[in-house]
């Protein structure tokens, strides 16, 4: 098993008596896109700041590219780019000056063509020579992303990257991140308080609530408990009785629908058990990501 790019075990961070992170464990492997999701105040930004070596962990283990970030921040930053929210920039510098001078801090002297390409990618080519004082929040967000791309990192960590972006820009950002992973093998960790914004993009999710990991897995795994097999049949009562003879318990749904557990039977089995002409439609139906998460958190609370 290759060494993960990010690894935390039982990571905790306290501010006085308040635990901002409490026993957080997760891994991020090369080539993955991982979504870090949680409500405001759940500990996402604290976790990212610990990963960036800006905050010292109170307890637990954390490694980024094999280094302890608090002790080896510079080594980590040679290969990782962080873009924190809200995007902080130098108001009196232009977009291009930001790219040039911040890249030089790492000893990288970017070519003009490289900068032009990045500015074009984030849609700031026409505003490159303007001081950022006049930039809107969305433009600052775009420049912040551009800064994270020069020089090209091995691991990209984005804090709330879609905040302030219009819907089209959000779609463009998703496409860009997927392209970065596909074409350049960039591993990506992105945080958001909106599950719906990252659900379609990520391979895996880590959900934080009150500083604890409440879920870690794929979006499909999150939704799985809510998935049901839905059969639309000619006669619901007859079909239900027929299934019962085979030990399958179906619940009556709307109209002529019957609901069964997700893995209760396949399409072929349903058609065979119900007989000719009975089965009209066969679906797998699950809750949305957010509903599934809410159901999961609610069930945990009740338990």
């Amino acid at each position: 098993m290759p060494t993960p790019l990010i690894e935390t075990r039982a990571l905790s961070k306290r501010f006085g008596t308040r635990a901002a992170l409490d026993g957080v464990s997760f891994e991020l492997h090369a080539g993955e896109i991982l979504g870090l999701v949680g409500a405001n105040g759940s500990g996402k930004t604290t976790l990212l700041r610990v990963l960036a070596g800006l905050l010292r962990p109170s307890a637990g283990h954390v490694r980024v590219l094999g280094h302890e970030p608090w002790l080896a921040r510079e080594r980590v930053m040679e290969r990782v780019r962080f873009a924190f929210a809200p995007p902080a920039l130098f108001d009196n510098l232009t977009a291009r000056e930001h790219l040039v001078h911040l890249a030089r801090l790492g000893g990288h002297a970017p070519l003009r063509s490289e900068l032009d390409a990045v500015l074009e990618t984030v849609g700031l080519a026409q505003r490159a020579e303007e001081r950022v004082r006049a930039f809107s929040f969305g433009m600052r967000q775009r420049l912040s992303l551009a800064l994270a791309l020069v020089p090209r990192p091995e691991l990209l960590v984005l804090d709330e990257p879609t905040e302030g972006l219009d819907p089209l820009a959000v779609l463009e950002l998703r496409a860009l991140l997927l392209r970065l992973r596909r074409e350049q093998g960039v591993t990506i960790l992105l945080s958001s308080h909106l599950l719906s914004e990252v659900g379609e993009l990520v391979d895996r999710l880590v959900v934080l609530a009150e500083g604890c990991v409440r879920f870690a897995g794929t979006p499909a795994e999150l939704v799985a408990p809510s998935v049901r097999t839905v059969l639309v049949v000619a006669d619901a009562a007859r079909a239900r009785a027929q299934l019962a003879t085979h030990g399958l318990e179906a619940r009556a749904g709307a109209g002529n629908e019957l609901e069964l557990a997700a893995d209760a039977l396949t399409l072929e089995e349903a058609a065979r058990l119900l007989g000719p002409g009975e089965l009209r439609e066969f679906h797998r139906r699950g809750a949305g990501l957010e509903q599934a998460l809410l159901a999961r958190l609610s069930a945990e609370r009740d338990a």
Partner: protein
Amino acid sequence: MSARLESLRLLRSRRPLAAAGALLLFLLLMLLGFWTYAESRTNGAAEFRYTYENRSYFNGLVFALYAFYFAFVLLLPVFAATEGGAQLAGDTGANTLTLVLVRPLSKTRLFFTKFGIAALFTTLLTGAFLALTLLVGLVLVGWGELRLYPGVLQMADRPQHLAQAEALRRFALAWPAASLALLAPLAFSFWISSLAKSAVNAVGTAVALYLVLYVIAEVHFFAELRPYLFTSHAGYWRELFQERIDWREFGRHAAALGGFTLVFTALAYRRFRLREEGG
């Protein structure tokens, strides 16, 4: 490379312009003060050039020395404290410190780059103002020899007389000496800046504390405390305008100021290196 970024940021900020504007305004006020004073002493007979109450005494060199003396007491240290206070705390408050720290740049290098740029700014501002006072003195007041008398600004215990060339040489020496004296309030404000989370708090606190320490250093009641205050040593550069410079005393004050600067810088550096960013 961080020096280029920090220099560009300083040049693009309003601080140099604000400092230059305030010093220029102060110089105009000094000119006006000199002229109106001379007018009152000569019963309205003074003209703007060469006609102060005593031409051999009130000349461009005296004007330059007085202007620099007054600016040094308050304006220049306040600018130094403002610059120092704005550095770390300003970047913390604006979150731009994070922008830099997520690059492969050590905190040590960042700290000393910032301190170096602020020290260079203070030194250049001091030199530029000194040169300007001399230029204004030459053009608008007129040249002569430098004569100082006891009682005036406590600059001399007995009458002092420096020929023009020698006086100019002393002004040249006063630049690095005064700049060294300003490093102490600069380092002090850096320390405050490393403790604060916003530029306003840091600058306000640093300036207020500087003023308190300056007043304490001047008040007779606190005479016993003077050796332990950096503000007590700051005016040591005035020794350069004595006919015979007491280099031993001069060196003692310079060493004390250097010591204060080192201690404040070390405190600021330690705090900055160990502190967490955010949270």
